[in-house]
């Protein structure tokens, strides 16, 4: 298992190395045009020097694909809970050389996803911060999902101002449906922690429709928080409706263990 700090250090080193290799190859390509002027006709013809550089570029690109393939397998492994295997793939991907910085950055994103799934939130947040401080270029779509992982990690760590900053930056983006679902779950959780109950209920029918599309536990938790908001704002009809739905969807003691705040809805038996 790669320690997170080491993974970040390795990423920074590899990004520098990648830039250096690219600059060197480009400089060599430019230099090859003047090779005859400088050394005369005895060394190597410009076209051959250019061919050699092209071959090196192709070989390095081919080698870079190995890392891409390795990293691409990890999201499915994380989703199915095979963390050990995902860890191995990401470790290999981080160690392999890549000519393209996007491959390395994407791998780091998957590592953040893995750490989040492993509930190692401090490391996940650190990885997200590192990733967001980089220029993502053609993979800028990763910004949104990284912000979401960061927001959730900070929320789990109890860093409410940090969560607010991460959430507010997401409102500037156009989100996909799965990202919108993720945002709703985190936002509801965040608002319940700062006790803004009326805001939680704003647009309730739409929020309910979205919650129905979430995975089991997340859906149950979000609806339970909506039920709690209904209780706090004196809406017994909605509270009862939502609470009954949650009771069908989730194991209540498990839910209470993850969010003790919800014990207002299901008080412990005396």
């Amino acid at each position, binding site marked *: 298992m790669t320690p997170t700090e080491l993974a970040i250090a390795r990423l920074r080193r590899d990004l520098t190395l990648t830039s250096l290799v690219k600059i060197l190859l480009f400089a060599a390509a430019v230099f090859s*045009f003047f090779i005859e002027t400088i050394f005369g*006709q005895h060394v*190597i*013809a*410009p*076209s*051959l020097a*250019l*061919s050699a550089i*092209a071959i090196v*570029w*192709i070989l390095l690109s081919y080698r870079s694909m190995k890392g891409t393939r390795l990293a691409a397998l990890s999201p499915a492994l994380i989703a*199915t809970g095979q963390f050990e295997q995902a860890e191995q793939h990401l470790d290999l991907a981080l160690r392999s050389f890549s000519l393209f910085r996007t491959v390395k950055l994407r791998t780091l994103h998957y590592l953040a996803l893995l750490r989040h799934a492993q509930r190692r939130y401090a490391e996940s947040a650190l990885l997200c911060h590192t990733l967001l401080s980089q220029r993502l270029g*053609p993979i800028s779509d990763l910004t949104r999902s990284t912000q979401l992982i960061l927001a959730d990690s900070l929320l789990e760590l109890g860093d409410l101002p940090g969560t607010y900053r991460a959430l507010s930056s997401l409102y500037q983006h156009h989100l*996909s*449906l799965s990202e919108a679902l993720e945002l709703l779950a985190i936002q509801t959780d965040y608002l319940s922690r700062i006790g803004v109950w009326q805001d939680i*209920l704003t647009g*309730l*029918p739409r929020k309910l429709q979205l919650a*129905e*599309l*979430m*995975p*089991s*536990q997340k*859906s149950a938790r979000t609806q339970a928080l909506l039920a709690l908001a*209904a209780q706090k*704002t004196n*809406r017994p*009809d*909605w509270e009862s*409706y939502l609470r*009954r*739905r949650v009771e*069908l*969807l*989730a*194991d209540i003691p498990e839910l209470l263990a993850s969010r003790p705040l919800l014990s207002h809805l299901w008080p412990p038996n005396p």
Partner: protein
Amino acid sequence: MTDQSAANLFLDVPALLQRSIPRAPGRRFAYVAGAFFIMLIFSLLASAPSAPLLPQFIAIVGMLGLIVAMGIISTSAARSARREQNEMQAAEELIQLRRWDQAAIMLDNILSRPARSPQARVQMLLYLCAILARYHRYTDVIAVYDHLLELDYQDEHAVHALRLGRAMSILHDDRLYDADRAIIELRRDSAAPNSAGLALVEIYRDVKTGHPREAIDLFHEKLPLFRRHIGHRIADAYALVARAYDLLQLQPDAQAAYESATLLIPEPELHRRYTEVAALAGRYHPASIPTEAP
């Protein structure tokens, strides 16, 4: 035009299965590699000290052209991959939001041309199954699942999920003998003991074949599994078990289960999914939903 007839106009399943097969990879790459090899030979010949200046110039320009062409090809390949990814995401969202006719049009369009990768094609065929099932075209759904199962999968969970979808469609299609065989096959999977999907298929089979007691017992046994794995689809299990109670003339239990089902999923949607549950319409009250938004 109804949704059903609209879907029948397109979604020609055999044609889509054929047209969506990805093109053999590397044809473009082979052309570029060939051109590169030719340019290399040409450069070698042109680099002889006695060679005139023009061939040397052509060799340099040719090699530069080739490098630029390679860059353009890889950029365009990346762009098409991104486009396909976006289309897949859009189709998935339309299905999740139950905009079936739009999703059907989109998938008909996407699957009418070769997919960029076998994985993307599999994903889109799974979406196609969801749409076809929505329109009750179960024979077509089974054909797609059969096609997918013929592909060589390494992942046991993926195979189990495909077999589940196939078994459910066979049941919907009232092919009870085939469904029984499909369930026996499913039970042999390593994922079977923890499969909420398999439990749902078995409950449906029991309701369909008139074994309500078995359906009810299985439902209670597997309830924790349903809660953990199938989210709001747990309403399907409640709806089927309501039908099972109804078959046993246990009206209060049927009422409770029916209310639970309709608490999670609207009544018409459940009736559309299971004709057996539609038989309960009007006989049991659905759950009441607060009408006034907070």
